[in-house]
């Protein structure tokens, strides 16, 4: 996850006055925020800029030693990420089947993909899954973060309880929800039955399978988004909110004009990671439905796995991977346009 976070942060901070210190980030963000609310930000910015230690500014000039620190990661990145990615592209131009000699087939794998009904189904299913999960993961994450940020009794326990599922292994999550969703003896249908609702074939009905998987995913990963938002909330200066309240702003307006704009860096990270992670959904579906029933939960990564490692069509599977990459890059670019904080 780190290699995703770093470029995001760099992208966001680039072009701002300061690059390294988190506190400085908050300052520049605040400046933007204050401008957005139509007030003069000069005074605030100046007074806070004085707080920035000198060393932070000096850090802007990279010393060659810095590269030494980056080197171990860079080597691992090239060996295990970048290199294989390039090789993967080359494989996608062949008909390689793991065994035997690969024949170069040019772009024919990509052409085949465009008319492969199962691939198109898998893309559509993935889009459906992203729609089902991403907005609710982001909004619910934000709501939960706001909730557990209040000074309430038991908030530590609540935070822990919400974050806990995220620590559980994906396969375990799948197995747990298989039990919960069991049509004949699952606990979910048992409780629904108390209200007179007939047993739902959660995972074996094509209509409910994807929503069921989405529910499990929401339970599993919403805690992660909550934690990022919660961290973002700690960066929102209490003074600004208090000042707005003194000026008579309603709680909603404080949230809308102060908290939300200042949360933008966190929002950017959450949106980006949620989109990437939901688009690449695999584990829980592999365990819970395997892509069925009748292809209802077949997602692109599942299809990739199926083609490359079950049918041994490595070239074709690699082509799927590159289509996924293109879609993800496109999503990231759209997001940079849409979210104001990414206009570096």
């Amino acid at each position, binding site marked *: 996850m780190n290699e995703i976070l770093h470029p995001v942060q760099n992208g966001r901070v680039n072009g701002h006055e300061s690059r390294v210190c988190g506190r400085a980030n908050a300052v520049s963000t605040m400046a933007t925020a204050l401008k957005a609310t139509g007030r003069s930000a000069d005074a605030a910015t100046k007074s806070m800029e004085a707080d920035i230690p000198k060393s932070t500014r000096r850090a802007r000039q990279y010393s060659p030693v810095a590269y030494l620190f980056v080197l171990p990661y860079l080597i691992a990145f090239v060996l295990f990420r970048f290199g294989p990615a390039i090789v993967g592209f080359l494989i996608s131009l062949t008909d390689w089947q793991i065994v035997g000699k690969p024949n170069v087939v040019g772009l024919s794998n990509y052409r085949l993909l465009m008319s492969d009904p*199962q691939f198109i189904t898998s893309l559509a299913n993935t889009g459906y899954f992203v729609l089902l999960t991403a907005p609710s993961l982001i909004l619910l994450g934000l709501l939960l973060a706001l909730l557990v940020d209040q000074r309430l009794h038991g908030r530590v326990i609540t935070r822990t309880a919400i974050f806990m599922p995220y620590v559980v292994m994906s396969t375990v999550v799948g197995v747990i929800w298989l039990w919960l969703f069991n049509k*004949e*003896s699952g606990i979910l249908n048992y409780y629904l039955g108390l209200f007179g609702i007939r047993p739902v*074939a959660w995972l074996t009905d*094509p209509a409910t399978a994807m929503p069921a998987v989405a529910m499990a995913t929401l339970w599993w990963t919403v805690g992660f988004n909550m934690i990022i938002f919660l961290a973002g909330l700690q960066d929102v200066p209490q003074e600004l909110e208090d000042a707005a309240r003194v000026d008579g702003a309603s709680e909603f307006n404080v949230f809308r004009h102060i908290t939300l704009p200042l949360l933008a860096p966190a929002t950017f990270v959450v949106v980006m990671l949620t989109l990437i992670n939901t688009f690449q959904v695999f584990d829980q579906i592999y365990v819970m439905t395997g*892509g*069925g029933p*009748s*292809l209802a939960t077949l997602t692109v990564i599942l299809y990739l796995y199926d083609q490359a490692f*079950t049918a041994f069509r490595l070239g074709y599977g690699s082509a799927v991977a590159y289509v996924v990459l293109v879609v993800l890059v496109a999503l990231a670019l759209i997001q940079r346009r849409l979210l104001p904080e990414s206009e570096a």
Partner: protein
Amino acid sequence: MRTHILASVFVTIALLGLAACAPAAQPTQAPAPTQPAQPTAPSTVTKLNFWGGWTGPDGDVMRSMVKQYNDTHPDVQVTLTTQQWTPLFDKFVVSVQSGNQPDIMAMHGPDIPQFAAKGLLEPLGNVVTQEGFKASDFAQPAWDGTFYQSQQYAFPLDLHMHGVYYNADMLQKAGITPPTDWISGDDFVKIATTLTVDTNGKHPGDAGFDPQNIQQYGLAMYDNHHGFYMWYALLNQEGDHLLNANQAALDYPQADGEKAWTWLQDLVFKYHVVPAGETNPLQDFLSGKTAMLIDGPWEIPAMQQQAGLKWGTFPFPQVFQNKAVWGSGHVLTVPKQSDPKREAAAEAVIAWIIQNSGMWGQSGNLPALNAARATDTFKALPGRAGFLAEMPYEVMLPALPAEAQVFSAAATSPIVVVSQSILIQDKTVPDTEQAMNNAMNALLAQR
């Protein structure tokens, strides 16, 4: 400051404690008299790797057999590695490329062609005979299952096939005497109907029966690739073959196929004796939601572990004119390698396992070796009767190099899609079967 000192003292003590533990632990392990009967250690030990996809109780049975072999053969030490079949096959294919292949590789008879066609397995020639076996020593489907293009590639280990498990208490309560041999499709439906009860105590077919409020079902069965396997058995019961002679396309009377699918679909949607869209048929049977279950003998250990369950087995119903049931069988292969000495050692190990496969019966699978099934060890095992009666009638899937595509168990596989469409979604049989045929023919044409 004081707390820092205290902390470092604690850490030091803890580290010392750990360090002190390490040497102390060793002497207690070293003299452990685990192999008192072991002969004197030989100068050279051949270490062999054995891979198999047995991840349940079957893996434990094979592990204990391997241990017994190692204990009695100090010059050869076998290590068994188990992993689920699909990832295991991935690993196997890659391992041969890098020269790290196992010395013994387990698979199923129908898996042989895909690996043989890739050149990962070599024909055994007359090795199986040299190790002292002949065709008549084995159940015929098992022996036949080790051949591809009239060359033998493996030693037959066992057979396993669909059969019917029943809950003895539930049958007794319904006044049904459990069958012991093959019964007709109609009789089977009759039993399943008697065992299906709605909340008012009515059975399917009774006036006022409410299929929406069924309390107990007669039967649990799989709606994944096993749905196709059942259909394949019924097709064979009608005397048809799935593929044409050169295995390049589907070639069976489509009307017969429709009859077979319709019979299966009716169990769910006409007779209501099978719950539609079951998540876990085995679990439904074990927990008493259903009175019967169509599954293989690999579930026998699960039956034995279920406290309070009284169970038995009888053959898959004979719906059409012939007896036939889908099945498969584990085989042991010697992957291609450069060291003939290791190859010979691996073959000797396999021969020993086959000779002693009466023990393997504990895994639920039926030993392919006739003599192994005749041992007292095997005969003492409960609940095998139904499967044993089926042995001569077992039909395996056609042996195809493109098996992993045509008969894949993945969600994208035409055999899974057809099964789920008909048995879960109640789609019309002729259209769905036509779609299956098109998809399978496309896959067959790829090679």
